[in-house]
């Protein structure tokens, strides 16, 4: 069974067993506007929770994307290299950025579920 969590920095993470798939939320994609570049992390890279995972650029701004959980990058979404606009058209489905082998399942306690995240966005 998969569970999806959200960060205050607008990343989502889908957890399936010990595999964590990471992307940015619809809210974030909309706020950034047209995405022009995604810097994917290197496979094998190890990150700690809330450390910089990779970077994204839109016509308006450059942003860092943080790892919602600690782990090791096992694969990345190469389609984003040629077509970063997928982040605008399908931010929470097709435009996943990296899959991590999760180090500590307990870290999800520091993340939000959808309802709380939606409320958090309303307050911004």
């Amino acid at each position: 069974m998969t569970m999806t969590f959200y960060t205050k920095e607008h990343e989502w993470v889908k957890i399936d067993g010990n595999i964590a798939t990471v992307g940015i939320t619809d809210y974030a994609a909309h706020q950034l506007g047209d995405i022009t570049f995604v810097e994917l992390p290197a496979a094998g890279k190890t990150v700690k929770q809330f450390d910089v995972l990779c970077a994204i650029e839109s016509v308006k701004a450059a942003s860092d994307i943080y790892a919602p959980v600690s782990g090791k990058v096992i694969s990345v979404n190469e389609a984003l290299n040629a077509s970063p606009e997928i982040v605008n058209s399908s931010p929470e489905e097709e435009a996943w950025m990296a899959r991590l082998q999760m180090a500590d399942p307990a870290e999800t306690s520091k993340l939000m579920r959808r309802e709380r995240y939606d409320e958090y966005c309303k307050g911004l």
Partner: protein
Amino acid sequence: MTVTGNRADGGIRRIYNVLQIGYSEAPGNPPKGRNAMEPLRETPLVGRHRDRKALMAPFGGWNMPIQYEGILAEHRWCREKAALFDICHMGEFLFVGDIIGGGLEDIFTFSVATIPEGRSRYGFLLNEQGGIADDLIVFRLAPDKAMIVVNAATSDNDFRVIGSRLRDGALLTDISAATGKLDPQGPLSRDILTDLLGPEIASVPYFRFITMDLLGSRAIVSRTGYTGELGYEIFLPSEKIVELWDLLLADPRMKPAGLGARDLLRLEVGYSLYGNDLDETITPLEAGLGSFVDFDKRFVGKDALLAQRVAGCRRTKVAFRMDSRRSPRHHYEIWSGGAQVGTTTSGGFSPMLGCGIGLGLVAPNAATIGAELTIRHDNVSMTASVCGLPFYREGSVRR
């Protein structure tokens, strides 16, 4: 995720502030001559922009539309069809008097007296040090009449400076509030304006204008713009602007575009943006715009430019293309051969070229075409190569 942008202080911005990046003067850094606490000004079209759910942001002291449906879509529409820009924020001054006797001839880096009626000319208002106080266009309306069109953020200061340099008998009036300006730009703009406004539009050449009756008022329709495409700037009394906006957008070939698309469009053809590529500390010679300086006439700042011409510029404008889709942005460092040689003044993603492009000021020996540069910001390092201008050469501007 955390957002950083085109900020001088490199400050971290939260995602919900992203829209201000690159387009605003941050609090504490207000446009020259304007109080930071002063409320943002609004154009007559603010209601229309809200109706379209445009994303609005501060620009030059004004609350302006940055985008409607999206920057890239609006950029494409302007390159392929025709886009309409609300440019009511820009300043307009009316000069009445003897051009030479009244002193107007000696103020700008170009001659006003030699502009034929019905034509316009681009150039600079300089300070005593040769720094650019503003870049502007003068329209010669009549033997004793000229309209000066200036940037929004510098408008108040320009009016003071120009006024202080005029002689008795000349009259300068700030007509900005009473004057609206709409820019229809794009390869289909001539066809659309000819259909909607009249056949006389079809024969206006580049950098010429006509005056005509439009919606019951006198309008100036000028073949100028800021996109690199065939296009016009229409000056009309403010109270008629909503009506003209609605009229032009009733044509399905025309769509509104915001300042986000405008910035990409101008950057792709290498036009300088005041406040980024030009400011009071940069001379026209450094900015690569010496061709808009007439050394055969008098103007404030001439001595400084002559001295700089003899001594050589310590920095020069450079244009560069990234080797990836990464965008350089304002105030990034430019490195060459292991040393910092300058900073970027503008940057973004070029949809037409499919890569990042930028402008900067660098040491002259780093600006050779083809030379490799490294663009740095925080922990990011990107490779670029020096190129010529414009970046995008297929525009319809002179068609």
